[in-house]
Structure formats: structure tokens, C-alpha cells
């Protein structure tokens, strides 16, 4: 990855979309301008009479076949590994196909090897797919692990479709994109985070091109139930088209929708050199965290204000240049009044001169894809000089008193527009677009970039592992192994005798915030606790914590299927078959209304922000086990490029949930009673680090544990894993002589051989060290335990130039190079 310090401009050269308003970008845009609504009654509940639900649905079976040459032989409904794809993946493939062709990327003879993918996506077990087998899967109120394992062995796609990170991987491989492949998960801000991250990466010079956007389809029974139990959905509708009424006084909730939008973001010179058509320029990105509550926005909208202001500051554009805001505008009572107040606070008197609209009034809420389709729409508004309207604005709300472009589109020659996203959990994002005209490349653009890349050091450590619930206890137990602990009964019945559970962790004393104690899963609680230890060990001032950036790698699926056991059992009819009718009458009422909040994949990040009051920019990465090290690498890049001074980075996971246990078991990776010497013992945990600009750390005389010199991230198909790992190892270690490697050590013949061979290729005589035999395999947390080992060994003077790497299932390959922080050492960064 380049560590160049020039400032690059980022433009949009292709867009594709599949939405409730149209099967491509053009028809979606045309229908938006015609004031059409894509909201209808949906049939997710079969042919049932009640409860009826409305949503913005895509007729997926009517989509045209994929056309772009990069994926000629593969359809949109089967993955490259031959498994049926879920709706969100299918929608993403279609949107990407359109964007790819729109940008004429098929005509490019070779793609830059650093080009990558960055999308927002959600994860959720699609309980519907299991309903046909319910009577055999349920043992009383619980899922029977043995029968569930047998079913998943037969139907492996059941587990595959819950893996949201797989969508980005599918795109990377299909389009031959070998650079980073990131899935951002920040609830409704996911796509905006993904686009913001892609934008920052291109601007820094990491790569010249990214396929970025979002996809989502949360219209399944359990998703509708989840949002409906939270009271988030509009319920007082009589006509579906009228239900989504942002900023109207009678609004009563949002309307779910599915869809995807993908954009090609390109570095300006790269786009010009290949003669690409430019649709708009991305000028800035702002991100913040409310650090307030999970589902309520802070009434003064402080987090939203910060996101908008920092985005404009990032773009170096005066606030009063903004002519249009594509609002988050969900149609919930609280969001719309709070967003209005936030716009007023951010823009002052100028708020009365700008136009605001919510395209959710027509499309509904595309959740993890919302930020992508809304950015695309904003780009088209600037390009075509016409602003899309807000439908259903009938009754003025005194608390919503801006110009919302009611009902009819409006011509406008505005040159700067922003797109807002605010998510459950309190993550806010804002992207700034500038109109592009021929000759715009000659306009001088003011930017603030550091003259030199900043040096980045580690100044704080925190951990919750099977070895101990803080760094001290973890170190003390390092020579022992947690791998002989007996597994919980449910796991043990699968012939998995051991599990590396975290012992002696008491959320009651580790977490102050009452609501967090109530809703966080154990894994997310580990994150909050480890992050707290890292902050304390760095001895940061409260103001430094408040403005710090937060980068978290989160586990994919944080949900216990047993949560639904009682409800599903109550939904079986006399023939022992699942009955929708019984579900809506008896089952639904037995489901914990907070289950959706409890299983938010960004709960660890938001919990950490709330508990420790961290309000700064943030990114939640949900890209499988490499996510934590990816979060760490992203924090490094942000500090190195001068975008932030202090960052908290880490991750958390628990592989001890049934779905995940089955994944590791069926892939033949988990150690079983039958093969006790092969594979790994499953575990859980979290680790966090404080990363800091070296100058800042030295000025406040912080303890410096190690310096980070380089990071690298690549993605490959599993078949090319060895090349991928070697590539990142080479890139991160550059020309330096490393003296230790901290790797995965999974105790699997192929993986171990790959690590050994890569080490040998890189530099003879280097063995790969790993803690996996002590901690077990703890998913996202494991590569971070490697990092902790490397940092501690560096601090102790045992090694001076270690390399930390991970390669998960042969897809993501990440490497980070450290060196001793000895101040006497000459800088050769």
C-alpha cells in the first residue's frame, strides 16, 4: 500500500442500482423525479391475512441477466463456490454489474492490483430458510445441535447466507479486484461508512479505484418482527405509498426496503487518463458517534452536527456553499425532528436557504444500502441540476421547519450537496459531493494534508481472553493453555470436547452503563472492557478520549438462535409444521423485543463509544476473522495521513455460538474428539490498542510500546491464498529485516504449511509464532492476540522488527510491521 502523502481527488465514474423504484439507476432516478413510490404490501408472510406488512421490495426474479465481461460465466444466483446466494448478494451483484459497465471498466486492459471493494452489508440468520425443518430442529425450546449440524451438512448454504462478509469477497473475486475487500457494518450508516472509507483510501493514495456501495434485504419474517417489536416501523398506514412520510407531523416510523447501489470511485488522474465519464466529485467525509443511546438520537443532534461539520471541513468547503441535503429522513418521529435541529445548528442562518429532501419517502429505508443509493441520487441531482422531492408532506410539523422540496422535484444549479446517514447505535456519517463539469479538473481545490506521513505508535493495551480478563492476567497465564477446558454441553454433543471460554468475566463490574449491561452480548461486553483497559493504560485525558477515532472489527453473527426457540415452538401447528398464522398469533409475542438491538453487529463499537464517551470518527469492519487487524490497519492509515491523532482500534468475537461452531466444524477446522490432534479449539475474546501520532505521544510523555511501520491488505480467491499472504507480507515488511513473525498457527496442515512456506520465502530461518494453542481460535480476536504478543515482545526487547499477519480462510490477507519504540532509533519510515 502506498504511503505517499499527495492529495488526490476522488470522482464517481460509474453507478448501478437495484431499488424498489427501478431495476437500474436510470429507472430509479426517473421514477424518483416523477414522484412515484416503491412501497407496496409484501408477501413475506406467505398468503397470510394478518399481520400485513408493507415494504419497498425488488422483484428479484425479473432482473435482467448479468452482462459485464468480468463475470461472464457466473450467474447472479449462485456463488463462485457453487452455493445459492441470498437476496442481498444477488442485489449487490446486479448493482455492481451495472456500475462496472456504466464506468466502462470492461474496456480497461488491466486493473490496478490495489483496486478493491468496500461495501455496507448486514448479517442475520434467515430463520425462514430453517422453518421447513423446524419440527426436527427444535428440542423443546432449544435448537438441537446434532440435528442442526446434520441439516447444515446437507444444505451448506444455510450457514453461507448468514455470512455478509462473503458478498464483498464474491465481488472482489468476480471482478478480479485484489486490493482490500471491506464490509462496513454501522447499521443504517453502513454504506456511507463504506463509501467514506473507500473515498479516504483513494484520496490517501492507497489505490486508484474502488467498487463501493451497499446492499441489504432485511424483509424476512424475523427482520420485520425485530423492527416491528422495537416500534420503529410505520403502522398507521392505510395506503402503503403514504406510509413513509419524512418530516410530516403524522409520520410514525420508517418503511423497510431492500436493494443495492454500487459506485465506482476513482482517483481523478486515473479516471482522466482512461477517458472515463465523471458524474460527480466526492469532496469530503465526516463521521461521528453519538455515544448516547442505542436507538434514540441525542435530542440536540450533536453527533449529526459533528458529522456534517467535519465532512465540510474535510472537503475544505464553506458551509454556505451547500445547496442540497439528501437527508437521512427516515420518517420516524425522533429522527426527522432531530435531523432538522442538527441541520439548523450545523448551518445556522444558511439552513433557511438550502433545500433538503428524503428520498426514503419514495424508496423506503434500504438500511445498509441506504447511504449508497442516496449518494448516487445526490450525484445525479448535481449532474442533472434537479433535486428529488419529499413525498407525503401533508401536515407541517413545527419541529420540522426546513424547505423539504415537497412532492415535486425542483431545478437547481447548486454545486455542493451532502448526504446524511445516522444509524442504530449512534454512528453518523456524512458525504460531501461537488458538481462535476468539463474543466472541473483545472479548478484549484483547497485541502489540508500533512507535509510528511506521521509516525504511529502504540500507547495503550487492553484484552479479554480465555487466558485472562486483562493484560496482566493474560500475560500471567500465557504459558498455560485454555484449550483443555470442557466445552459447554450443547457444543460437547457435537463431539467438540473443549472450548476456550472466557472465565471470571463479570460484566456487572466491568461495565458501568446500565443499558449496556442489559443489551450487550458477552462478546460485545469483552470489547467494551478491553477498550476501557486500553484507554486507561494509555492514560489519555478525557478530552483526548472524546475526540479519538474508533476502529472496531466485529464478529459476523452475534445471535443466539435459541432466542427464537420458544416462539417457533409456539408456531408449530397440529401437524408439527410451522404456521405463519400461529406465529403471528402466539409466537411473536414470545420474542424478546430487544433481540434485534442485542444482535446488532456494531454493538461492540457503539457500546464502547457509549461506555467510554468516544465521539470521534469511527469505522466498524465486519469482514470475517481478519476484521480486527483490518480495523487496526485502518487506524494506522488514518493517523499516518494526518486525519486523526489518537485512535482506539481492536475487535471482538465469540466462535462459541451454534451457527459459528457448525461453520468451523463442517469446514473440518475445529478440533473434535475423533481427531484430537488436528485443528483448533474454539474460543472467544477481545483486544484493543491505543494508536497515536508519535509526536503527540512524546509530547504527553506517554509509554510507547511499539511503533507501527507499515500495513498491507489484499484479497484473493482461496486458491491464490499463498500468493496473497506473501504479497502483504512483502509489502508490509518492504526492505527491512524482520526478526519475528506472529501468525495464525491454526494447526491445520494446509494453512500451517502456507504460513511456513511464506515465512521461508520472505526470509529464511524465521518461524511463525502463534498463541492459538493457548487461547484457542477466537475469530476476530485471535490476530489481535498475535498483535498483543508482538507488541509485548517488542516492548520487552525480545524482538525488534516483528511482522504480524493473518490469512482467514484464504480470502483476506493482512500484515502489520512493528518495530521497537526505542527513541534512539533512527527514523527510516
Amino acid at each position, binding site marked *: 500500500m502506498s504511503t505517499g502523502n499527495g492529495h488526490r481527488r476522488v470522482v464517481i465514474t460509474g453507478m448501478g442500482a437495484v431499488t424498489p423504484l427501478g431495476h437500474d439507476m436510470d429507472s430509479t432516478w426517473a421514477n424518483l423525479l416523477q414522484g412515484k413510490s416503491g412501497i407496496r404490501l409484501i408477501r413475506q408472510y406467505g398468503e397470510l391475512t394478518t399481520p400485513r406488512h408493507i415494504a419497498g421490495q425488488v422483484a428479484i426474479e425479473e432482473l435482467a441477466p448479468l452482462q459485464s465481461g468480468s463475470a461472464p460465466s457466473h450467474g447472479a444466483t449462485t456463488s463462485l463456490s457453487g452455493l445459492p446466494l441470498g437476496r442481498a448478494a444477488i442485489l449487490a451483484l446486479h448493482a455492481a454489474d451495472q456500475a462496472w459497465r456504466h464506468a466502462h471498466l470492461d474496456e480497461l486492459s488491466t486493473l490496478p492490483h490495489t483496486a478493491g471493494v468496500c461495501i455496507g452489508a448486514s448479517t442475520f440468520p434467515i430463520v425462514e430458510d430453517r422453518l421447513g425443518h423446524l419440527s426436527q430442529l427444535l428440542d423443546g425450546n432449544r435448537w438441537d445441535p446434532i440435528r442442526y449440524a446434520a441439516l447444515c451438512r446437507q444444505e451448506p448454504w444455510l450457514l453461507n447466507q448468514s455470512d455478509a462478509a462473503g458478498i464483498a469477497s464474491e465481488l472482489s473475486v468476480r471482478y478480479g479486484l485484489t486490493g482490500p475487500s471491506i464490509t462496513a457494518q454501522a447499521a443504517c450508516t453502513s454504506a456511507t461508512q463504506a463509501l467514506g472509507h473507500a473515498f479516504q483510501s483513494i484520496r490517501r493514495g492507497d489505490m486508484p479505484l474502488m467498487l463501493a456501495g451497499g446492499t441489504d434485504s432485511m424483509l424476512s419474517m424475523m427482520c420485520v418482527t425485530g423492527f416491528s417489536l422495537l416500534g420503529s416501523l410505520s403502522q398507521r398506514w392505510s395506503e402503503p405509498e403514504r406510509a413513509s412520510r419524512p418530516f410530516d407531523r*403524522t409520520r410514525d416510523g420508517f418503511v423497510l426496503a431492500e436493494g443495492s447501489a454500487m459506485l465506482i470511485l476513482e482517483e481523478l488522474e486515473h479516471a482522466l487518463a482512461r477517458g472515463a465519464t465523471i458524474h460527480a466529485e466526492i469532496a469530503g467525509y465526516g463521521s461521528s458517534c453519538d455515544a448516547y*443511546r*442505542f436507538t434514540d438520537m441525542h435530542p440536540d443532534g450533536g453527533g449529526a452536527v459533528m458529522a456534517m461539520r467535519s465532512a465540510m471541513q474535510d472537503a475544505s468547503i464553506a458551509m454556505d456553499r451547500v445547496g442540497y441535503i439528501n437527508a437521512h429522513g427516515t420518517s420516524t418521529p425522533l429522527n426527522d425532528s432531530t435531523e432538522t435541529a442538527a441541520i439548523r445548528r450545523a448551518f445556522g442562518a444558511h439552513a433557511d436557504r438550502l433545500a433538503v429532501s428524503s428520498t426514503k419517502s419514495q424508496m423506503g429505508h434500504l438500511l445498509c444500502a441506504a447511504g449508497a443509493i442516496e449518494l448516487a441520487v445526490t450525484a445525479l441531482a448535481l449532474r442533472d441540476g434537479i433535486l428529488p422531492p419529499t413525498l407525503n408532506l401533508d401536515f407541517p*410539523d413545527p419541529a420540522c421547519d426546513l424547505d423539504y422540496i415537497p412532492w415535486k422535484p425542483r431545478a437547481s444549479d447548486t454545486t455542493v450537496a451532502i448526504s446524511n446517514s445516522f444509524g442504530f447505535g449512534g454512528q453518523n456519517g456524512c458525504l460531501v459531493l461537488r458538481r462535476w463539469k468539463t474543466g472541473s479538473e483545472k479548478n484549484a481545490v483547497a485541502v489540508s494534508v500533512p507535509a510528511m506521513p506521521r509516525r504511529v505508535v502504540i500507547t495503550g493495551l487492553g484484552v479479554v481472553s480465555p487466558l485472562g480478563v486483562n493484560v496482566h492476567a493474560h500475560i500471567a497465564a500465557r504459558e498455560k493453555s485454555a484449550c483443555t477446558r470442557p466445552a459447554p454441553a450443547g457444543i460437547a454433543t457435537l463431539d467438540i470436547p473443549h472450548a476456550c471460554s472466557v472465565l471470571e468475566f463479570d460484566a456487572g463490574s466491568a461495565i458501568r452503563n446500565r443499558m449496556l449491561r442489559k443489551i450487550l452480548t458477552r462478546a460485545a461486553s469483552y470489547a467494551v472492557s478491553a477498550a476501557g483497559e486500553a484507554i486507561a493504560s494509555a492514560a489519555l485525558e478525557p478530552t483526548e478520549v472524546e475526540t479519538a477515532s474508533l476502529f472496531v472489527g466485529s464478529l459476523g453473527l452475534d445471535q443466539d438462535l435459541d432466542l427464537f426457540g420458544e416462539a417457533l415452538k409456539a408456531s408449530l401447528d397440529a401437524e408439527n409444521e410451522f404456521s405463519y398464522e400461529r406465529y403471528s398469533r402466539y409466537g411473536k409475542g414470545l420474542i424478546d423485543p*430487544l433481540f434485534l438491538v442485542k444482535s446488532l453487529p456494531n454493538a461492540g463499537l457503539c457500546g464502547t463509544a457509549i461506555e467510554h464517551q468516544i465521539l470521534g470518527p469511527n469505522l466498524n469492519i465486519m469482514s470475517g476473522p481478519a476484521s480486527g487487524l483490518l480495523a487496526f490497519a485502518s487506524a494506522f492509515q488514518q493517523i499516518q495521513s494526518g486525519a486523526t491523532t489518537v485512535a482506539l482500534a481492536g475487535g471482538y468475537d465469540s466462535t462459541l455460538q451454534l451457527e459459528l461452531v457448525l461453520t468451523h466444524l463442517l469446514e473440518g477446522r475445529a478440533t473434535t474428539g475423533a481427531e484430537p490432534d488436528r485443528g483448533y479449539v474454539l474460543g472467544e475474546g477481545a483486544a484493543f490498542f491505543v494508536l497515536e501520532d508519535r509526536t503527540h505521544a512524546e509530547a504527553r510523555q506517554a509509554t510507547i510500546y511499539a511503533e507501527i511501520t507499515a500495513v498491507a491488505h489484499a484479497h484473493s480467491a482461496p486458491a491464490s491464498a499463498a500468493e496473497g499472504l506473501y504479497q502483504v507480507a512483502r509489502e508490509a515488511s518492504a526492505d527491512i529485516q524482520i526478526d519475528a513473525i506472529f501468525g495464525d498457527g491454526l494447526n491445520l496442515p494446509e494453512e500451517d504449511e502456507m504460513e511456513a512456506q511464506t515465512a521461508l520465502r520472505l526470509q529464511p530461518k524465521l518461524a511463525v509464532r502463534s498463541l492459538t494453542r493457548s487461547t484457542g481460535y477466537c475469530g476476530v480476536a485471535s490476530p489481535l492476540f498475535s498483535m498483543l504478543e508482538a507488541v509485548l515482545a517488542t516492548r520487552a526487547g525480545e524482538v525488534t522488527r516483528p511482522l504480524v499477519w493473518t490469512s482467514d480462510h484464504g480470502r483476506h490477507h493482512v500484515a502489520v510491521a512493528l518495530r521497537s519504540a526505542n527513541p534512539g532509533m533512527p527514523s527510516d519510515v
Partner: protein
Amino acid sequence: MKTTQPDQQPVSDPFRAAMAMDRAGVQERTIAVVARCLDRKPGEVQLSSTLWGDLDAESLDMLDIVYSLERSFVICLPRLNLLQRATDIFGESPIVQGSAITAKGLAVLKASMPEVPESFFQSNMKVHEVRKAVSVGSLVRVVVRCLDANAALRCKVCQGEPRQVPDFPMEICCTQCGAAMELPSGEDIVISDLLRVGTELGIPRVDAAAATTEASET
């Protein structure tokens, strides 16, 4: 609450056991549920404690409390807030003007929430201020109302009394003929109570179609 022959009912039927509770029992259990949901000692929760004010509850807590009360008493509580329901029934303009509640709207609230001190309902009160009135006593009132409705329920087939279907927490059936019965809906209870209040106060019901038209006209 009607409890004719409580001793004859099996103790293992939580549905009948809840119906058999006296008011003091309902209060005690409601306080225990609220305390557990808010992670407080029962002594810190009084009947007069307001949820949003005194007890510092968040919207997620309210969902948790309502769900826990339903499970605990085997009842079906209303979800939609009283004011929204009132505007559905009586139309938007008689109840709410701008962001403030009208005099009629206040009269409806007073009559519907007798446990709230009169002084709370000030003229020009804002819509979002209503929730500040909700206390543990308000919850007890609604729970008792739902339990009464449970007790009044009779089998459509044979007029028998209801009991819980063993092993199915929220399902009831007739004690005599075994026919499936349905828990009275909290929403229906609120609607019928509001209609009664409307009649007492002389506020006419807007029929559903008309209310919809009003809500969707530009």
C-alpha cells in the same frame, strides 16, 4: 378483578394465577418487574415513580417492561400510545394542534389516566410531554384492566372460563370444552375505553375512513 373460586384453579396455571391476584399483589409484581428491567432494588421503585423522570427509563426499557409484564401476567398490553390512538379515533385536529394538545385532548388524557395528578395537565402541553406522566401506577392500571378483561372472557362455544394451554405461555383455551381462546387485545381495550371517555366528554368518533382521508389529504 373477578376471582370467584381461585382455590379451585391449579397453581401451575400462571394465567389463572395472575387473574386471581388482588390489587396489592399486582402492584407488588409490577414493581418487581419494573425494578428488574431497570436494574434497581424494588425499594427504589414506588407506585408514584414516573418511568421517564424518576426512574430514568429509556425507550428500550419501556419495550422490555411491557414485554416482561405481558409474560408475567399473561396479558396482551396496548403498544400504540394513548394520544396517537385518540387522534385515530377522534381525528387529528380535535386532539392536537401543531405540537400542542388541545383542551379536549387534555380532557381525554385526564379521564384516561386517573392516577396522574390533575396539576400535570397544563393547558398548551406539548405532545412529547405526555410520556412524562407515565408512572408505575399507570402500568398497574393498565395491567389490572387487562387482567379484568381476561377474567371476563368466556368461551364462544360453551361459555366456559379460559385457562392456559400447558407448555404454551401465551396461549389459552376453554377449561370446559378445550376450544382455543384468544387473549383480549390491549389495543381493543384502549379503543373501547377511549370511546367510553369520548361519549362521556361529548367528543364524537370520526369514522375510520374519514380519519384516514384527513390524514392523507394534502
